[in-house]
């Protein structure tokens, strides 16, 4: 799996950080998404996909399955 984040789209809701804290973090100054790992291991795939679904700004994309 490869993940991409669209930083300008992010609204800092933080749901990805709640669901997959090993993959996503937030910038300290404005809560905008930081991608920690663009190739997360298999056991995190479901959480990453859920993060993409609940992201209100559609800022997370799974580009390779």
């Amino acid at each position, binding site marked *: 799996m490869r993940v991409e984040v669209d930083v300008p789209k992010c609204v*800092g809701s933080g749901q990805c950080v709640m669901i997959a804290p090993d993959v996503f973090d937030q910038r300290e100054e404005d809560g905008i998404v930081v991608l920690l790992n663009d190739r997360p291991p298999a056991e995190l795939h479901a959480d990453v996909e859920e993060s993409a679904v609940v992201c*209100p700004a559609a800022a997370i994309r799974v580009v390779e399955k």
Partner: protein
Amino acid sequence: MTETLAETTAQAEEPLAEFPMPRAAGCPFDPPPATRVLQNERPIAKVRLWDGSTPWLVTRHADQRALLGDPRVSSDPLVPGFPHPNEGFRENSKRRRTFLGMDDPEHARIRRMVTAPFAIKRVEALRPDIQKITDDLIDAMLAGPTPVDLVRAFALPLPSLVICRLLGVPYEDHDFFQKNSSVLINMASSVEDVVRANEALTDYLDNLVAAKLADPADDMLSELAARVRAGELTQREAANMGVLLLIAGHETTANMIALGTVALLEHPDQLAVLRETDDPKAVARAVEELLRYLSIVHNGRRRVALEDIEVGGETIRAGDGIILHTGTGNWDAEVFPEPERLDISRDARRHMAFGFGVHQCLGQPLARLELQVVYSTLYRRIPTLRLATGLDQLPFKHDGAVYGVYELPVTW
């Protein structure tokens, strides 16, 4: 030609449903039955508002998500066709512009000025403080007489204390701001009262921002004051933002605490599970399910189309108002099987109780944390908590922008 005319006449004669629609007597947690019928039969339907305007009412989860995430859909209440909930809201939207009523890129620029304090880690660091506030309020309640109004004694003070501390607003002024805020979000308030309450709150926050300009502290109003000094915001804009954060910070969570308690007391099996679990993940799941089930922003998110949009087999035209009834969307069986069942073990994370799209609630991490602390503490510390009146005697906020109960007499 004749046929077209006949069709037009038939459409014109067909009476449109009035919105908002009432909830059913005896079913305080269910979305209005008429919205559930529309969800099955006409999920994107025109309705008639107080001013005779006829926006679209959207009731299915998938259509709501699509529209709330669509940049062709505007949140700006000054765009003609915007479906105002009443005259007071329409008047106020001209007076107090906040990022809630802006579109990107202006919206993103302003919203990002206040996102940092709501980041997950910063909010999580508040957990011990919120636990302490919760325990202190429960101690005070247990030391006092019964029955007691849970709204006054607990549900309202808790989020008010938290947001006051975050913003840098003196909690001693809570009677003042709670009273004015309740006027602002009550649909039955007169236009004059709404305008007066808005001015009182804005002046109050304006003075606080001025004080923080002179004497900054470690709080959000001081951060906004620094933006004013840097020329990024006017003092009035900072005050408007302060009003928004203060109102949103206490009204919504207070209603989730009180109404959530009513819902749990009416579902003792679910309450027992919540009371007995030690698993923070189970508590977090219960919070999501209660957010879904109760959906306290109960008369829909309001938008207006900027272009023609095809959705769910309908064409929404540029300038058409759109009401996304997320409370009904959260009871969409396509996404939440047996939606009418309160099941705190279900995965309800896809609910839209905080909205969806770029305007999704800024304070949601804080709201979640407050509810997790409350729901895992209150019923455990007062295991015999019960209503001191009948469910049918409770004053539900049918006329509020946010649903809940005005009072909740409880005993133990």
